[in-house]
């Protein structure tokens, strides 16, 4: 069977058995190769580049916030020039602080923690790991990235509108987010741009999730049964199902919010509100409706950020432990359980929202129960480290660090999952410390592990191990010094989202805030080592072999970097699971697949 003449197919692909498989030939021209590329590998790298820009932006915003919290009366050098009105003399106004906070949260959650571990690495690695030439729908895939990119531009544009960037936090609680500029600075056009940006982002992620699911289900190569898929692919697959459901609820929520803001509807705005001495022309809307819709997305979003990290660690840890992962099927079952339970717990964000107090106890139970599968996975990782001959490469170190920070962040969840304790800790820095550990730092460690692990495959060069290890140890110290003290602050009743703690009962916490700020600036500075390593290795790193880590999965059966169709016109035949490490003799591992030239006729 010959491929359709309607499809442009490269010569090495001409006798490929299945034309629908790839759907596009080798790219020609600069734009097709690097900009509007259909190649999942280029798209994955584009997502990672976007995440890199976003994470740098988000980090700088957090430095400014931390600096202001610790030294409220010292000017930030240069800030007065960049923002002459919002930070006259370099000292930021409360609304600028809130804007930085809102943008930091939004950028980090959406454009870093969703794009990098899920869309970025998933795009690059998933099709190769299942033995496909590309995603199921390359055009949707390209659209997915560019739509996300537009969403990012729209969000950043909010910095430059005259009414200022949004200040209602990444959760954009209505009616503050819905009322418009009466409610204060930053709630005019800036807030509208926020809602539009997130709505566009949802579309991009829906397209991406669709691709991930279809590719995993339909494009697996010969012998690649579901149970032979690497755990990273399993995690991306499950994440994409979570994402599909989550973003298809956030999108309607954003559309209704936009309508409330620009079309005068009252979905989220109740009647009788007097804002800035003006009785608002709205009636009957429900602020809790926004919270329900948002958190129905928002809690699963936590797992969208962290499950790829679970997958990456489960995939990478055995490679460097040189032994099989303990209980891979149990891990899969736990991932599925977490994915399912993640849709039953959203109310724990709303214990104090005025929702029926009975439902708080109902939401508390699945919130606590979800720790069981998470604990099982952590114990299986720790059990995998037991008796290993660990090769302490940088990706291995970040995997081990991931386990440590995830445990630290997960355990503080025991406090917040209980409504009775949440009455005290809700809205304090305890929560900030908790979610930064469990979804911020842990997910970042997963991203770092993935970067150091797959960089040789992506760019054909090795990263510098010395710099990598330095980066790891300093980052580990830095994040613990930054986020662990936040738990202490929370216990002392220090509330979050305040731009100053100078003149009230929280003034006593200022020394600890100074320490946190120092630690945060230190941790941020340490990331320069990573950036330098990234750029230097890209240009000058030692040439990487096809399989530098002696790993088994399919991406290591092909050259570094892979050819545009991944397998160079050959067909991978999978004969083993991904977990064949630590067998007697040399080498101590078995590759998952063998590559065969295509038979002349199928």
């Amino acid at each position, binding site marked *: 069977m010959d491929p359709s003449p*309607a499809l442009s197919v490269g010569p090495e692909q001409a006798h490929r058995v*299945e034309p629908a498989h790839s759907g596009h030939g080798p790219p020609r021209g600069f734009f097709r190769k690097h900009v509007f590329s259909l190649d999942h590998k280029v798209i994955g790298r584009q997502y990672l580049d976007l995440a890199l820009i976003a994470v740098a932006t988000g980090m700088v915003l957090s430095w400014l916030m931390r600096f202001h919290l610790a030294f409220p009366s010292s000017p930030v050098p240069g800030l007065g020039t960049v923002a002459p009105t919002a930070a006259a003399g370099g000292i930021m106004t409360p609304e600028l602080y809130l804007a930085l906070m809102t943008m930091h949260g939004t950028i980090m959650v959406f454009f870093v923690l969703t794009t990098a571990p899920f869309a970025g690495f998933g795009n690059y690695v998933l099709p190769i790991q299942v033995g496909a030439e590309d995603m199921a729908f390359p055009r949707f895939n390209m659209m997915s990235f560019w739509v996300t990119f537009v969403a990012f531009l729209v969000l950043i544009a909010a910095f430059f509108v005259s009414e200022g960037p949004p200040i209602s936090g990444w959760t954009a609680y209505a009616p503050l987010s819905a009322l418009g500029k009466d409610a204060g600075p930053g709630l005019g056009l800036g807030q509208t741009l926020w809602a539009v940006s997130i709505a566009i982002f949802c579309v991009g992620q829906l397209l991406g999730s669709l691709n991930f699911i279809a590719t995993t289900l339909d494009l697996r190569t010969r012998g690649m049964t579901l149970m032979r898929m690497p755990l990273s692919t399993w995690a991306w697959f499950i994440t994409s199902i979570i994402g599909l459901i989550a973003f298809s609820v956030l999108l309607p929520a954003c559309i209704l919010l936009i309508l409330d803001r620009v079309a005068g509807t009252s979905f989220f705005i109740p009647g009788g509100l007097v804002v800035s001495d003006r009785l608002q022309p709205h009636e009957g809307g429900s602020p809790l409706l926004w919270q329900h819709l948002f958190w129905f997305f928002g809690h699963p979003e936590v797992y969208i950020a962290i499950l790829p990290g679970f997958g990456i660690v489960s995939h990478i840890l055995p490679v460097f432990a040189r032994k099989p992962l303990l209980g891979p099927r149990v891990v899969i079952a736990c991932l599925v359980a977490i994915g399912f339970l993640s849709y039953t717990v959203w109310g724990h964000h709303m214990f104090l929202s005025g929702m029926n107090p009975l439902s708080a106890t109902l939401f508390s139970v699945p919130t606590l129960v979800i720790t069981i599968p998470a604990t099982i996975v952590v114990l299986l990782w720790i059990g995998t480290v037991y008796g290993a001959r660990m090769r302490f490469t940088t990706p291995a170190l970040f995997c081990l660090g991931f386990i440590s920070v995830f445990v630290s962040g997960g355990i503080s969840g025991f406090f917040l999952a209980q409504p009775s304790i949440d009455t005290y800790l809700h809205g304090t820095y305890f929560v900030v410390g908790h979610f930064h550990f469990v979804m911020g730092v842990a997910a970042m460690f997963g991203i770092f592990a993935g970067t150091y692990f797959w960089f040789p495959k992506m760019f054909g060069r090795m990263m510098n191990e010395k710099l990598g290890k330095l980066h790891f140890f300093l980052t580990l110290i830095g994040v613990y010094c930054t986020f662990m003290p936040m738990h202490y602050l929370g216990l002392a009743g220090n509330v979050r989202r305040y731009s100053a703690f100078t003149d009230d009962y929280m003034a006593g916490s200022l020394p600890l805030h100074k320490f946190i700020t120092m630690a945060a600036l230190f941790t941020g500075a340490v990331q320069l080592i990573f950036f330098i390593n990234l750029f230097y290795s890209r240009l000058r790193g030692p040439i990487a072999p096809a399989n530098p880590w002696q790993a088994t999965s399919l991406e290591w059966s092909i050259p570094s970097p892979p050819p545009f169709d991944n397998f160079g016109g050959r067909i991978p035949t999978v004969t083993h699971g991904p977990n064949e490490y630590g067998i007697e003799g040399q080498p101590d591992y078995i590759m998952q697949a063998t590559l065969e030239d295509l038979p002349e006729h199928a």
Partner: protein
Amino acid sequence: MHTAQITAPGAPSRTGVWIGIATITMSFAAYTSALMVRQGNATDWHRFELPRLLFFNTLLLLASSATLAFARRRIGESWNARAGSDQLARGLAPSELTWLRVTLVLGILFLGGQLLAWRQLTGQGLYLASNPASSFFYVLTVLHALHLLGGIIGLAYADTRLRVPGTRSALSTLGSATLYWHFMDVLWLYLMFLLLVRL
């Protein structure tokens, strides 16, 4: 044995449509629950009479699903009539595509009918922001229309692929577009039910 052929060729597009159906179902479920919550504590909910035209539009859409079923059977027969080949040396003739085009026309008529229905409502002074019932009416019907427009594009694309020489994958494009179209039909019936009961 073929590579990646755990499922039949052309399956990804069908899987894709099923995933799309799941997504759209989920988002309309979200709108539905928003409607329930919003109506639950509303003092400002004013019910209104749905335009009669909507029932006629519903018939149009139901008819289009029927004609599409005819179209698929007809096109499949034409294809198989060509000596069981997996490949068409020349595209299908316009006469073989008649039912498909009738479907397209019915779909476009449905959209036109919806447009008229919206104009009737605005004529009565019912706009998007007039009250929550009209807000939900416009949001739900406009979103359905936009999704249906996607279906029209899908069917038109299948039409262009069938007109030129090609492989069986053109048939699976038609199959996927058909699946989506029937789903739009079902979704509309659900929305009509919801609007009748709730608005």
